């Protein structure tokens, strides 16, 4: 009977967000909604007048930089989306029980962040209205040569896989909790559990395992260690990009920002709904340790890039490396990551240093720093092309209010996504082994 009451409590806790919204909730939605609305206005402005409202320009005689915050944000959001699914896959494949409570939150982050990443590609286009027709029309040809076509393909594949994964694993929970879920969303639940029968659980669990397996392979090999860095590392005209080290670097940055984001989002939910029992300190300590590890990996690869670029590199590479090393933003980003890695590493070895607040605060650092690093990578790379004989090279880029609004818009969208989804679906998994007792 003890076990039964414990499970009841757990389910009660899981269902906490699904209750009636509080003032705080409305306030959050209002603020995030305002952020999104502001961004939509900025985007409308851009659609009306063209990309001239950004700080972008052609490289060469113009003295501009053709990609900036939009592409930087795109990589950043794709990177964040990795954390989620990798944590979730880790739970499933390697039975990492400690991350179990945050697995679904992480999956939701993946789906949300990936959607936002896709949107940033659209925002960056001069003619977003054509994207579907134009891409489909010559897809058979472009997929053979264009890294951007590869990107669109793999991101779509990744989205389908993660969404399927989420859908498969959530059906069981909706079915189990069906009598306690808010009645007003009944059609949603009916749709999601369409054709569900408890007998499918075993099959679904196997399918989810294989999906997780595929995702674990796909993310490093094809996505953030593949097509995303290939967008840049295959471009020989930009020496700062043209390096085989880009793929592992991108992956390290993706994981750094991803684990940071999962920590932040988990903490926010734990704080809002009193989930100290559901998401224990231990989970945060462990996530902090993983973050220290991937952060260290990131720093190590930065060291490799700088050593190679500064020692006796070909002129183009050296120029680009020097430009990076002279940039205070770069060193600020790196310095912040070093600080975060030092603390998170120390608390791994010396548990007395651990505190929830500290881990969460320190996790914000790499998330913000990676956005700067990514944007800088794009801008510095394009500002220092191989063919630098032009008067107007290196180019200059000062983002405008429209571009800065897009960052606000992206974060607001993610906040809205979690605000909405947490009112509709259970965002923490109901453990399968307790299901019999739950009924």
């Amino acid at each position, binding site marked *: 009977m003890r076990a039964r009451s414990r499970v009841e409590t757990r389910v009660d806790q899981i269902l906490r967000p699904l209750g009636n919204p509080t003032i705080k909730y409305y306030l959050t939605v209002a603020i995030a909604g305002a952020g999104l609305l502001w961004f939509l206005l900025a985007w409308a402005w851009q659609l009306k007048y063209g990309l001239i409202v950004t700080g972008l320009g052609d490289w060469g*005689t113009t003295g501009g930089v053709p990609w900036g915050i939009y592409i930087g944000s795109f990589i950043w959001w794709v990177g964040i989306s990795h954390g989620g699914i990798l944590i979730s896959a880790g739970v499933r494949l390697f039975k990492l029980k400690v991350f179990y409570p945050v697995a679904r939150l992480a999956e939701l982050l993946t789906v949300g962040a990936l959607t936002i990443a896709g949107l940033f590609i659209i925002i960056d286009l001069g003619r977003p209205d054509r994207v579907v027709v134009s891409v489909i029309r010559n897809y058979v040809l472009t997929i053979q040569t264009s890294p951007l076509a590869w990107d669109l393909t793999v991101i779509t594949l990744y989205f389908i896989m993660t969404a399927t994964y989420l859908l498969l694993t959530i059906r069981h929970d909706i079915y189990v909790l069906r009598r306690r879920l808010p009645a007003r969303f009944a059609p949603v639940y009916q749709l999601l559990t369409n054709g569900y029968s408890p007998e499918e659980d075993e099959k679904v669990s196997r399918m989810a395992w294989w999906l997780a397996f595929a995702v674990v392979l796909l993310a490093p090999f094809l996505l953030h260690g593949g097509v995303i860095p290939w967008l840049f590392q295959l471009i020989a005209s930009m020496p700062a990009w043209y390096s085989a080290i880009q793929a592992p670097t991108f992956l390290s940055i993706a994981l750094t920002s991803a684990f940071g984001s999962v920590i932040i989002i988990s903490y926010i939910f734990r704080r809002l709904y009193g989930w100290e029992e559901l998401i224990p300190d231990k989970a945060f300590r462990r996530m902090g340790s993983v973050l220290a590890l991937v952060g260290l990996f990131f720093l190590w690869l930065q060291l490799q890039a700088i050593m190679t670029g500064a020692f006796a590199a070909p*002129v183009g590479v050296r120029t680009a490396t020097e430009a990076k090393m002279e940039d205070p933003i770069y060193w600020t980003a790196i310095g912040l990551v070093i600080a975060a890695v030092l603390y998170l590493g120390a608390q791994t070895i010396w548990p007395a240093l651990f505190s929830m607040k500290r881990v969460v605060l320190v996790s914000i650092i790499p998330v913000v720093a990676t956005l700067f690093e990514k944007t800088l990578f794009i801008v510095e790379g394009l500002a220092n092309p191989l063919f630098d004989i032009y008067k107007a090279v290196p180019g200059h880029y000062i983002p405008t209010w429209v571009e800065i609004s897009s960052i606000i818009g992206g974060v607001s969208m993610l906040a809205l996504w979690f605000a909405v989804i947490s009112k509709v679906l259970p965002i923490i998994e109901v453990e399968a082994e307790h299901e019999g007792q739950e009924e």
Partner: protein
Amino acid sequence: MEDKSRLTNSESGGEKKVPFEKAPPLRPFNADLAMRVAEDTQKLTQGKLSEPDYYHKYHDAYVKEFGIDARPVLSSDTIGKASSDSILTGHMSRRTLLKLGGVALASAAGARLLGGRALGAAANLGGNSSGFPLKENGEQAEGAKRVQMGMVIDLENCDGCLSCVYACSNHNFNSAGVLWLYILAFKDENREGNNFLVRICQHCANPPCVKVCPVRARHKRDKDGLVLTDYNLCIGCRYCMVTCPYGVNYFQWGEPERANYYHPKLTDYRGRWVIGNPPKGVMGKCTFCPDRQDDGRGNVVCALTCPHNVLHFGDINDPNSEPMRYLAAKQKEKGGNLSTFRLLENQGTKPSIIYIGHQPTRSAKAVDGPVSYADWGLVEKRLDVLQGPKPWFSKAFGGTQ
């Protein structure tokens, strides 16, 4: 001597003296005809002679002299249509007209080169004897037959007058600072004075921009190897600009400042909109004037305008084409000591522009040329003029952005 008289006439377009010795006669030709054509070209530019009449007048003489007449000789039923295609319309400023007068002159003078007859001197060109870069074993057999329009650019003749830049910019109605053709003046170590680099789209045989385009808007036209952008397909991702090692792409960041008023959507022979100023949100770059390739004129505006015999446009895979004959003749003249190069060749792009002159070294520094872009009313650094409208809320913050 015959040649000198021809070129003296081209000077009447207001250009500087041409170091004529550098352009050797390629074959004997009818100097009287050239003189008469040149005189009538002046009449044409002054409006005393209509374009169709002008072309008709010498058609027979051209055929007799050269075997063909590649100029747009018009039948009466196409005259109306073609006049709207003319580069000589009443909308142009006097200055433009003068420039284009130079174009017409050069056109008349250059037409003799379009005959396409083999010349003994150039017949052996090809193979590896020329010392040209980019001879790849596997591609010779196939590549030799493939038409690849390109240029031989004689930098030794260039004096940086920017006539070609101005002509290109106006012909394509490009926005301020969009320099599909750009003359870069530079100082280099151990080399006295100004050197020039005519930076134009290289219409590469292996173009990285075509490779990366996610929609195949950027493509290579089969017929003549032009690298073009389909303005109806382009989604404006700017990946082509990012990947081009030469920096020849210019995006249409806002509404085009000028419209092509005779042909807002000028299409090539395939019906694809690839010519002229691109619309908002679409990429543009040098096109090698596909309309002029399709209708038989077979020339490009910049080369026609150049008063100094710098730009030579034609099929660089054909040893009998004008640019290749020019190159061969010049090589012969220099006794094989001619310095030629292709730009950033080690990028593997197989550029179709062959430069005569000295390649800028790593220590080359861009300097102001003898004629500034502002002198021609052009903008050199586009970022200075690339300004969007002030946002609606700017007034609330004191009106400045």
